[in-house]
């Protein structure tokens, strides 16, 4: 059974802290993604990675960075957490077959609260 695992379901951090969200997939997928989910806004792409050490900005990258040192692991970093980064964070992975219709697989999400 395919699996995308996020290291925490719930996190509470203080303003200004550096925060690491970890995601691991066991499907040997090339593509990995970090989304942020907020009510009424759907899922918005923060960053994605199409290979080890490769990354591209999504629609809302400000205040975030990412790291992909190994194919199976994709980390999201909040350099200095702020209250407006309180949200649900979802990691996903997807097989790269060019234009083919491969679906993304999602983790359970991390609900981050910044106080």
């Amino acid at each position, binding site marked *: 059974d395919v699996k995308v695992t996020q290291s925490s379901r719930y996190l509470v951090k203080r303003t200004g802290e550096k925060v690491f969200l970890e995601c691991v997939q066991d499907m040997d997928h090339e593509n990995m993604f970090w989304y942020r989910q907020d009510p009424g*806004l759907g899922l918005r792409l923060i960053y994605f990675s199409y290979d080890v050490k490769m990354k591209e900005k999504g629609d809302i990258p400000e205040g975030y960075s990412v790291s992909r040192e190994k194919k199976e692991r994709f980390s999201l970093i909040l350099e200095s957490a702020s209250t407006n980064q309180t949200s649900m964070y979802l990691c*996903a992975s*997807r097989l790269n077959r060019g234009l083919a219709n491969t*679906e*993304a697989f999602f983790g359970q*999400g991390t609900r981050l609260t910044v106080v």
Partner: protein
Amino acid sequence: AQSVTQLDSHVSVSEGTPVLLRCNYSSSYSPSLFWYVQHPNKGLQLLLKYTSAATLVKGINGFEAEFKKSETSFHLTKPSAHMSDAAEYFCVVGPFQKLVFGTGTRLLVSP
């Protein structure tokens, strides 16, 4: 550029009645289209995907979607709603690596 519009933020139905969740898309290329469902406090689960083999796509739990190129639509339907269908549904477009999500439709099912 790609985009997707879910035309209703909330849809309310009674158990046993049909469900229609509407989605329009925009894509410069032949689109990949998906519907995902998210139950409360759960991750996203794939309901169905358009593969270009057939315009009527069958998914899990009795859901279907019809791809209409002329209308740039990919509406999700189910003949008879069940209480367990209450959830948030996302229409998604993406022929390349990135997937673009709609803002979601919350389906409410009353007894």
